[in-house]
C-alpha cells in the first residue's frame, strides 16, 4: 500500500496517476490524499512526465476527470484512478457507456455537482462597482462568491467572455479570478472582508425584484430548490424574500375584493378604426391554421 499526497488540482493527479499506471500499481494499493496546503496558484502545473508511457484513454474521461478534480469529496482521486485502471489495464474500454456502473455513476454525480456549482456561480455572482481605471477609463468591478467546490478556474472563462469590456475581480475563499481587459489570472483565496459589500444599484435591483414578483402565484419551494438559502447572504435581493412572502396573501385578497371594472368605450383613434375594419370583413375561418409560407 502506498500513499500519494497531491495538491488538489487535476494536473497533479494526472501526473501521479500516469506514474502509477506506468508502474502497474493497482487501485487497491493506493491511498490518495490532498496536501493540506492550498496550491500556490491555480496556474496549471507544467507536466514533465512522458506521455508515451500511458495507454490512451477516451477523451470523455479526461473531461470528466478535469471536472471531478474540482470536487471537495476526498474519495474523488481514488475513484478516478480506479476508473482509469479499469479503462486501461482492466480491459473495460467501454466503461464510460455503462452509466449504471457504481464508479461511473459516482463520477457522473460529482461531475453534475460541479456543473451545478459552476452554473450557480455564473448566476449568483453580483458585481459591485468599485471605481474606474484612470488610465484606461474602464470601469472596475469586484464580487464576492462562495462556491461549494474549487471551481473558480473552471467558471472564470464565462465571465471573461461576457464582461470583456470591464475590469473585474471575483473573490472567493478558494481562489480569485481577475480580468483587466487582456489577461485572465488567478490568485489565492481571500477572506470575505476583502470584498465590497454593496452597490449603489442594489436598491434599483430590489425595486425590480419586488415588482416582478406575482403574489398570486406563491411557490416558495420552487424558488428554494433553484436558489437554496445558502446563497441568500450574498444576494442583495434576498433581503426582500421574507417580507414578500408574508404580505402576498393580503395582496391577493385585496385584488379579489376589488370592484370589477367595466369596459371603457374605445377612444376616437384612427389606428383603432383601421383595426375594426380589418376585424370585420370575412377572413379565413379563424380556427383553420393558414398555409405555411
Amino acid at each position, binding site marked *: 500500500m502506498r500513499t500519494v499526497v497531491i495538491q488538489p488540482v487535476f494536473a497533479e493527479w494526472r501526473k501521479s496517476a500516469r506514474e502509477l499506471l506506468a508502474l502497474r500499481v493497482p487501485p487497491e494499493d493506493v491511498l490518495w490524499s490532498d496536501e493540506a496546503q492550498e496550491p500556490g496558484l491555480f496556474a496549471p502545473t507544467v507536466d514533465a512526465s512522458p506521455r508515451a508511457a500511458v495507454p490512451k484513454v477516451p477523451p470523455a474521461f479526461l473531461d470528466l476527470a478535469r471536472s471531478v478534480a474540482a470536487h471537495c469529496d476526498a474519495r474523488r482521486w481514488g475513484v478516478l484512478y480506479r476508473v482509469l485502471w479499469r479503462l486501461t489495464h482492466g480491459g473495460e474500454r467501454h466503461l464510460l457507456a455503462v452509466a449504471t456502473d457504481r464508479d461511473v455513476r459516482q463520477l457522473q454525480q460529482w461531475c453534475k455537482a460541479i456543473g451545478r456549482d459552476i452554473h450557480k456561480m*455564473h448566476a449568483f455572482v453580483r458585481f459591485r462597482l468599485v471605481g474606474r481605471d484612470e488610465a484606461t477609463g474602464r470601469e472596475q468591478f469586484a464580487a464576492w462568491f462562495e462556491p461549494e467546490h474549487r471551481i473558480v478556474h473552471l467558471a472564470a472563462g464565462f465571465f471573461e467572455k461576457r464582461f470583456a469590456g470591464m475590469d473585474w475581480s471575483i473573490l472567493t475563499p478558494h481562489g480569485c479570478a481577475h480580468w483587466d481587459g487582456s489577461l485572465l489570472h488567478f*490568485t489565492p483565496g481571500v477572506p470575505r472582508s476583502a470584498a465590497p459589500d454593496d452597490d449603489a444599484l442594489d436598491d*434599483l*435591483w430590489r425595486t*425590480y425584484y419586488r415588482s416582478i414578483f406575482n*403574489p398570486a402565484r406563491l411557490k416558495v419551494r420552487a424558488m428554494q430548490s433553484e436558489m437554496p438559502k445558502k446563497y441568500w447572504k450574498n444576494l442583495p435581493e434576498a433581503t426582500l424574500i421574507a417580507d414578500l412572502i408574508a404580505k402576498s396573501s393580503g395582496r391577493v385578497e385585496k385584488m379579489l375584493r*376589488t370592484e370589477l371594472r367595466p369596459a371603457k368605450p374605445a377612444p376616437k383613434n384612427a389606428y383603432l378604426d383601421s383595426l375594426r375594419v*380589418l376585424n370585420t370583413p370575412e377572413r379565413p375561418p*379563424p380556427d383553420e391554421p*393558414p398555409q405555411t409560407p
Partner: protein
Amino acid sequence: MDPNGGDERDRQAHLLNTGHADEPKRQAVGGEFLAHILRIAAAKSRRFAQAKRPDVQDAKGDDELFHGMKVTTSETAGNSYCSRGQMDLQHKLEILADAAKYDASCASSGAARKDSRGSAGVGSTGGAGICHSYAPDGRCISLLKVLLTNACLYDCHYCINRRSSNVQRVRFTPDEVVRITLDFYKRNYIEGLFLSSGIIRSADYTMELVIAVARKLREEHHFGGYIHLKTIPEASAALIEMAGRYADRISINIELPTQQGLAKLAPEKNLSRTQDAMGHIRGKIDERHAEKRKPDAPKPPPFATGQSTQMLVGADDSTDAVILRRADVLYGEYRLRRVYYSGFSPIPEPSALLPIQPPPLVREHRLYQADWLLRFYGFKVDEIANDAAPNLDLQLDPKLAWALRNRTVFPADINKASREILLRVPGLGVRNVERILGARRYTRLRLADLLRLRVPMKKLLPFIIAADHTPARLGLDDDALRARFLPPPRQAELNFDAPPPPVSGDIESVRSGDL
C-alpha cells in the same frame, strides 16, 4: 462629485485608513492584485462612511443611487439624473416591471453564440440560459422584463394595462431602458432585456420605439447580451424584420387559443393576423438559416434565432385539448421554440368580463408536462387530450395518466424495449432512457442499476421488467393502480409535490428528463 471615480487625495486618505485586519497576506499576492484589493477596500470604507450618514434609509435610493447612476453612465453625459429623476426612475421601474410580470416567458437560451471579447462592450449569449434569481413565485428571473410604457389603446380584459384599467400610466424613454439594462447587466443581475410595450398611437409607432432601444444597445453600446423583443402582428413587415435584426428572440403572444376567445376578451386582436405574422417571422428565420449554410456566401445579417409565444390558461373556457392543439399547430407550422402557458392570475384592476377565481396553478403545470411530451417524447395531442377527455387529469402527470389508460403496452422490458417504448414508461426521462440504452449494450440491467440512476421506483415498477423483476400481472390490471399514484388528499393544489414548471434552461431540464 463622483464618489467612485474618486479624487486622488481622497483615495490616498482612505487607503491609509483602511484596516489592516482586512488585508490579504502580502507575500502571497502580486502587486497588481494587492492594489486592486486595496482599491476595493478604499471604495468600501467610503461607502461605509456614506451608510453611516443619517437618513440614508429614508431618502431611499435618492442620493446614493443618483451618484451611482451618474458614474456608470457618464458616457451618456447630458442626460444625467437629478435626484428627483432617480426617484422617478425607481417609480417607473416599479410600475413597468409590475406591468410586464404577467408574461411567463423567461428563456434566455437558444441564442447564437456570441461574446464580448475584442469589443468595448459587455454581453454574451449562447448555450443554456441562466436564471440569475428566483422570485418567491418560483419563476426564474433571467431578463430585465419591462414595458416601455403601460399606456395602451387596446382593451384586453386579462391585462392590467388595458385602456379600461385605472392604473397610473408612465413611460420610459429609450435611454432610460438602455441605461438600466446596461447597469443591471454589468452587475450580473440579468442575462439581458425583455422589452414589450403597451400600444400607443399605432402598431408601427410603438414598434419603432421598442426597436430604438434595441438599436441603441447594440450599436451605440456594443451590447452583446440577450434581447427579446415583443412584436405586434399589425406592425409593418419592415419593422418586424428590423426587430429581428437586433433581437435574439422575437415573440408575439397568441394569448388565447381560439378566435372566439380573442373576440370576447381581446377585441383588437386577431388569431389569423397573429399567425400570419408568425409565419412571416418563421420565413425570415428559415431564410437566414439557408443563407448561412451556403458556402462562400457573405455572412448574412443577424436575425433572431427563434420565436416564442404565450397562451393564457383559464381566462376563457378553452379546454386543455383546444390549448394543446393550438400549441401543436404553432410548433409544427410556425416552428416556435416555446409556447408558454400562463395560468390566468388575478390582477389588481379586475375586469367585469373575467372569472374572478383563477384556475388552479397545477393546471398550468400539467400543460407544461403535456407540452414536453409532445416535443420530446413522441406523443401526439390526441393521446394526451381529446374530445372524449378534453382536460388533463390534475392529479396525475399526463404520462402516467396515459400509461394507466394504455396498460396493454406494458410491462416494458428495460433490457429489450425500443427507445420509443422506454420514453413512454412513467418515471423515465429522456436522459435516463439514453443511459439505459447505452448501458444495456454491455450489461443486463437489474433494479439496483435503476436505483443508481435515481429513477422514481415506485412509479416505475408496475410498468417494467428488469433482469430481476417482473411486475405482478395482476398489479397492472388492478383497478386500484390509479389510486396508488394519487397524491395524499390534502391541499393537493397548493402543495402539489412536483418540480417547478420548466424554466430558463430549457434544454437542461429536458436532459434531466424529470417530468
